[in-house]
Structures are given as C-alpha cells and as structure tokens.
C-alpha cells in the first residue's frame, strides 16, 4: 500500500501505520526502549518531515503506465537477490544450524535484574561501545548541517533590513534644514 497508492499523502499514512505496527511488535517482544524510540523517531520526525515536504511540493499524479515495466528484467534480477538470500538464510536457520558466538553480551540474564533501557544504557556508555554513540552524534550533526546548507538559499529579490546600516546612520547627514521663504 505504501508504494502503490496514487496520492503520496495516503502513502505516508500507510507508512506511519507500518511504523506503528513495528513499534508495537518490538514492545511485545520485550524491547520497550527501542520500540518507544522507533515510535518517536520514525513517526515524530521522519513521517512528519515527509508530510511537510509533500505539502510543500505539489506532485502531479503519475499514472502507472506500461513504461514502468520496461526496467523489469534488470530490476527483477536485483529484486531476486535479497529475496533469495533471505530465504536461504531463513531455511539455514530453521535447519538447526549451530552458531558459534565469539563474544556476546547476555540479554536474557541481564533483563531479569535491570530493565531493557537500563541495560542498553550501560552498554551504550561502556568504553567498548561508546564510539557508536559519538559516531551517531556525528552523523546527526552532519545531517543537520547538510540539510540546512542545502535548503538555505539567499534571495536577492527581496528588500530586507540591514541593522548595521540602520545604526550607523547619522541624523545630521540624513536630515537637512531648508529655509523656505514665505511670500
């Protein structure tokens, strides 16, 4: 539904529905913190951003023509690759293969004592994984600066205030005395 609806606003609403479903599933699985963060970030930030852009840009309704199927042989191949990979992975796991885990942070043993968010926080600010926090912060900073730089364009056709020019203006130069003789 997200990709097949003609109107992009409806498409965004279905996208929000998918996000809500996933967040509910995560909370159901016992990953409460990540589910809440999904809810906040995906719906509060990303979906609202999409809505703003869709309302700013008026999009012509593009009908699905037969020209779209022109790319199908090439794209079908690329489509089959992740699908077959995931299916193969799925059957591989269902066949009872053993996994050798080199190092792992126990989850089920820790969650009985602390909460999910507490556990994630301890792990996030440990010395081993704190570069991830710094890296994500850097990504967000670069994204913010990049988005501002991309959308900020200086318009020259608008008259705007120049505060420095206003302050530096001297009244003695700006006003002149005229003597008008009366008849």
């Amino acid at each position, binding site marked *: 539904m997200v*990709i097949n609806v003609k109107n992009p606003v409806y498409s965004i609403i279905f*996208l929000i529905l998918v996000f809500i479903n996933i967040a509910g599933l995560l909370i159901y699985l016992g990953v409460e913190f990540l589910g809440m963060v999904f809810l906040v970030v995906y719906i509060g930030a990303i979906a609202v951003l999409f809505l703003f852009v869709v309302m700013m840009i008026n999009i012509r309704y593009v009908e699905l023509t037969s020209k779209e199927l022109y790319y199908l042989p090439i794209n079908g191949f690329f489509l089959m690759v992740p699908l077959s990979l995931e299916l193969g992975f799925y059957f591989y796991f269902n066949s009872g293969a053993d996994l050798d885990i080199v190092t*792992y942070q*126990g989850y089920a043993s820790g969650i009985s004592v602390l909460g999910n968010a507490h556990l994630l926080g301890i792990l996030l600010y440990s010395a081993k994984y704190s570069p991830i926090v710094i890296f994500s912060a850097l990504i967000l900073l670069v994204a913010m600066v990049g988005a501002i730089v991309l959308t900020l364009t200086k318009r020259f056709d608008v008259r705007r205030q120049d505060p420095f020019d206003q302050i530096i203006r001297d009244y003695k130069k700006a006003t002149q005395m005229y003597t008008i003789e009366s008849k």
Partner: protein
Amino acid sequence: MITILDLYQFNHLVGLGFLDLSTTIFVVGCCGILVVRKNLITLLMSLELLLLAVNLNFVIFSLYLDDMVGQLFALMILTVAAGESAIGLAIIVNHYRTSGEVSVETLKNLKG
C-alpha cells in the same frame, strides 16, 4: 505478564517467525525502488522501509542470539535513517526548486 524465562523460550521458539515480516517489508521496499518508480518521495519512503526491515532483523537476531549489541546497532541504524531522510528530503526540495518536478523518469536530465 510474561516472565523472563517465558520470554527467553518464546524468543527461541517463535522469534524467527518475525523474519517473515521483515523479509516482506524488505521486498516491498525493493519493489518500491526498482519496479514502481513513481516519484522521488515514494522512492525515499521505500528506502525508509528497507532500513526498517534491516532494523527489525537486527532486533530479532539480537533476541534470538541473546546478544545485546544488535539492539545497539539498531539504534545506530535508526540515526542513519533519520539523517538520510533529512538530507534526501532537502535534496528533493532543492531539485524541485530548480526543475519543477520530482519524477524519477525526468531525473535523467541531470546528465547534462
């Protein structure tokens, strides 16, 4: 209220069934990018779907393998998705200002 032991066993028995869901979301996102190709905003939305599916996979395997680091990486991918959508939408707005439309098919005019 489910206990922790129930949760653990539940994740080991049923948890991989959620891979069906994530695979479905991933394939829908792939279809949106490769087959439908309507406008750039739909393309970006299907990119979000792909990242969501990957994220879900990370969390599912984090629960299945009883490893906490998967959820950490899911958090990082969430950050990447947010930044990517912000920058992508900024590029779309800029492209709309210059060319006046957001269709994928007319994007080939960028070749110059």
